[in-house]
């Protein structure tokens, strides 16, 4: 109650009197926080608050201070045994820090726009689209990591190496060899037509000169490894009435490419290029119409397959999850694929049918086939094809009841309340716990082993260690609520021969019972969930990590999303309409490279 009151006081309205970080806030922080987070180099949870001397320094780390606001507001910090904090001081910290992070109402900085190379997956989809071939181009290319907000399309973690170029040459060769080029060759000017699609913009004769006078297939091969294809080189246009101040709009075709790689992970099609040609993306109505058409197109499944899979982590189901084969003989490739498809289709449905994003937390059905339904103990579903099935049982429906998530957050032989709890905190609530101390232990690998202590009892014993307790008090109870799901997501009433105690709690919240209780508790914190979703989506759209200047965009989209019952189109359009999505910085303020020149 108090927390909610403070939240509304502190976050809804800026304080009447300006608060100075150095004069007003820092002394309170010094008393309440520094004893653990700053004095004498103490850095509990890796956090040193004493290093911030001024408001400007603090503003550079908005996430840290947003999290600090939340912890202090929810009375998680200072801890019970720490310095006492009165109501007025608590309000000062919450309101003062919130005001500090509010960047005011000047022009919004679009942030950096590092040159984006098409990712491995984007290359695969794009080449497949252009050549209408079913060749797994991505499989030819070396695997890649992720960056920014955690996605493999982040500009800063996409590299080019001799191996990459060699593999791309091979992939393009294979794709062109398998392609029927005659539809292209029947066009008036095949090279010009192909270049327009591959380079995603109007083409002039100078662009084409290198590709003229050679067989069409050779021209195609060359265009598909050309830098203009491989990199998203963006033009800008002159600002017009209605454009955001202090920033330069990207041109129509660069915006079309941003749209298509956001929604489809592939290049603009003819329709989108034509719309860009006609200036049809200059108005909000035009952009909304384009987004609506693209969402309705089957290609928008890429958003589920790429964005959601990486955000929610169910891509790990295929790459790293390895339930023990002997213990879990029913975990077959067919089951695994059905799990991944359930997660993908569930997200896709929310996008395609413009449903509330909160259905990720709780839905009245899910996608099942016979295999997966049997796995979940749900009757009456037949066949291999997954379809939407209404489910009364609230334990299923929503990501917390999905085998994909439950398996990806388990170890080969046991569940991990810690991993599952940390997953909820990081992925759904956007508040990742700090790393464990270096000598942190783990539970035994196998939870079927009977040593008289349930995993919960063992974890609770370990939480008696003070250095572990402050974080594990937040993490573990969330995972406990999911303990009734076994390591491959089946329901169970007992583990290691003992009944499961599924009492859980969110940080600073009241206790609840099991996955259904967790769902309700998360729905009660839908603002944190909405913010996390929006932050990840914006990061995915921009191909970079979010920065301080993005905070206003995030907040505006979150507010709109909450005002409109969480409809997914509001988030998508919010991202598309945001300044960082449609603009570049006025001057290319090049960041100094950390190293020397690449060689």
């Amino acid at each position, binding site marked *: 109650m108090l927390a909610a009151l403070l939240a509304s006081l502190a976050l809804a309205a800026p304080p009447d009197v300006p608060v100075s970080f150095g004069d007003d806030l820092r002394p309170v922080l010094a008393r309440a926080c520094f004893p653990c987070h700053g004095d004498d180099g103490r850095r509990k949870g890796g956090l040193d608050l004493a290093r911030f001397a001024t408001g400007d320094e603090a503003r550079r780390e908005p996430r840290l201070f947003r999290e600090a606001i939340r912890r202090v507001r929810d009375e998680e910090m200072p801890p019970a045994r720490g310095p006492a904090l009165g109501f007025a001081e608590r309000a000062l910290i919450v309101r003062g820090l919130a005001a500090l992070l509010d960047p005011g109402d000047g022009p919004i900085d679009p942030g950096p726009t*590092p*040159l984006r*190379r098409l990712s491995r997956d984007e290359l695969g989809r794009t080449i497949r689209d252009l050549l209408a071939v079913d060749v797994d181009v991505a499989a*030819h290319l*070396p*695997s*890649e*990591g*992720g*960056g*920014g907000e*955690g*996605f*493999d399309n*982040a500009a*800063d*973690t996409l590299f*080019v*190496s*001799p*191996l*990459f*170029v060699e593999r791309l*040459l091979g992939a393009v060769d294979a794709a062109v060899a398998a392609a029927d080029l005659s539809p292209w060759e029947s066009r008036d000017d095949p090279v010009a037509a192909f270049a327009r699609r591959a380079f995603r913009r109007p083409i002039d004769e100078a662009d084409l000169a*290198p*590709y003229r006078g050679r067989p069409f297939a050779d021209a195609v091969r*060359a265009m598909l*490894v*050309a*830098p203009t294809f491989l*990199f998203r*080189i963006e033009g800008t246009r002159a600002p017009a009435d209605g454009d955001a101040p202090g920033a330069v709009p990207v041109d129509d075709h660069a915006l079309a490419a941003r749209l298509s790689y956001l929604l489809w992970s592939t290049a603009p099609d003819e329709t989108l290029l034509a719309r860009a040609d006609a200036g049809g993306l200059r108005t909000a109505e035009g952009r909304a119409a384009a987004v609506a058409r693209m969402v309705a197109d089957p290609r928008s499944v890429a958003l589920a397959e790429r964005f959601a899979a990486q955000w929610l982590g169910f*891509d790990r189901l295929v*790459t790293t999850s*390895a339930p*023990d084969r002997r213990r879990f003989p029913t975990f077959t490739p067919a089951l695994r694929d059905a799990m991944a498809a359930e997660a993908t289709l569930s997200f896709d449905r929310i996008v395609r049918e413009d449903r509330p994003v909160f259905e990720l937390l709780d839905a009245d059905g899910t996608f099942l086939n016979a295999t997966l339904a049997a796995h979940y103990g749900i009757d009456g579903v037949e066949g291999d094809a997954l379809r939407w099935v209404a489910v009364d049982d609230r334990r299923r429906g929503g990501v917390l009841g999905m085998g994909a998530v439950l398996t990806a957050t388990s170890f*080969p*032989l046991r569940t991990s309340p810690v991993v599952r709890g*940390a997953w909820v905190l990081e992925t759904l609530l956007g508040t990742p*716990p700090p*790393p464990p101390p*270096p*000598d*942190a*232990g*783990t539970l035994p*690998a*196998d939870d079927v082993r009977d040593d008289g202590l349930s995993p919960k009892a063992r974890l609770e014993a370990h939480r008696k260690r003070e250095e572990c307790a402050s974080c594990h008090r937040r993490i573990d109870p969330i995972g406990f609520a999911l303990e009734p799901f076994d390591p491959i997501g089946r329901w169970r009433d007992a583990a290691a021969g003992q009944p499961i105690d599924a009492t859980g709690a969110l940080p600073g919240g009241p206790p609840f019972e099991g996955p259904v209780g967790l769902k309700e508790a998360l729905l009660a914190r839908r603002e944190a969930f909405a913010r996390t979703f929006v932050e990840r989506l914006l990061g995915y759209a921009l191909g*970079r*990590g979010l920065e301080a200047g993005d905070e206003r965009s995030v907040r505006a989209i979150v507010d709109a999303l909450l005002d409109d019952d969480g409809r997914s189109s509001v988030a998508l359009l919010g991202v598309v309409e945001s300044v960082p999505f449609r603009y570049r910085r006025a001057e*290319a303020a*090049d*960041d100094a*490279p*950390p*190293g*020397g*020149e*690449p*060689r």
Partner: protein
Amino acid sequence: MNRPIPRRAALRGLGALVGLPWLEAMAAPAVRGVARAARPNVDVPVRLLVLFVPNGVNPTTWTPAGEGRDWTPSRALEPLAPHRDDVTILTNLWNRGSRGGDGHYVKVAGFLTGTTIAQTTGRHLDAGGVSMDQVAARAIGDRTPLPSLELSTEPVTGGIDRNVNYTRLYGSYVSWRTRTTPAPREIDPRRAFDRLFRTDGGLGARERSVLDLVREEARSLAGRLGADDRRKLDEYLDSVRGVERRIEHLDAHRARPPAADVRRDVDAFDERLATTGDAFPDRVRAMLDLIVLAFRADRTRIATFMFGNAVTNRSYAFVDGVSGGHHEISHHQNAPEALEQYTRIARWQVEQFAHVIARMKAVDEGECSLLDHSMALFGSALRDGNRHDPKNLPVVVAGRAAGRLRPGRHVVHPENSKLCALHLGLLRRLGVEAESFGDADEELAGLG
């Protein structure tokens, strides 16, 4: 598994590119087993292999008893007993730059760079330096069709680690082409083999003309880009040049007659890959044997192999007595059962190292073996995974570097001696004239 090339097409012309100038220059073939006492052939190049293991080792079963020539292998090192005269065990090395940061990423990415990596989820990604193997590749890599070979067993780990704010890709690379660009690794033995030994259907005149074209396009683009973006374009151009150099090498090698015995082994390896399973131990063996074959055929002289990425929780249940994931087990909390499994995992990894050593010994190069002309570094960027301890790393070097290493010893250095000093020593033995490397101005004392 995706098979990019029809087998028959790949086999045609296999080996045609295997030219071994020094072998042709040799007067008489050596007798296997007698070579040990003989002088190394100075015309034969020195090779560098790095075998990296993630997640550290059981610290209580690693360090051998005794010092100098009088040492007894520990439990983890027992598989090296048959090769004790060919290995140097190095105790008390570390990379000072890997102190702090986080428990894994800083350690792994800095293992061969000897630096501190930047804490970032991507922006201004920076390993702090070029890795030792890539320094060598820059210096001497132009002498072979592939400047260097980077192999692993796992795809790059995706996403970012929000707990510590590093992109997870740091933990997937020990080789860094530049401070800001990791060297991609091959994880599929078939693709790696094809790249090493396939001569037709891959890179040729057509690819050369494609690259000519795109290079021109890239140059004309440069003027339109800001400095940051131009760096990306430079990376692209540099890579195009790298592939062009490879094509030139291929052309040159096509003109040379094949060495019959090498060609026979290449063909045999190709056949073997057709039946190599997906199981981890099989893939590890295939990769290691492939490296030996590549060295022997002089396709490259520099190779790195990662048994896995940082924090990998790969199941080692295929090892007798092991039942869990690697990372889980490495957090043993001093429980005897976990420590025992941790030992068994390291021991299995050392067995693979011993296998490489044996294979390299079996290759005659004049009066000596391939191993005598090589330096094979085996190590981890952590000692005890439970503590994420970067001090006193487990490090072993096999081989004689053509007489410039003195193996057969357990060398106990003063505490906190520089891993970079070892890297510098290895670089110099490869013929790389380096004043310094990382934080080391002098090579490690007593290498030989």
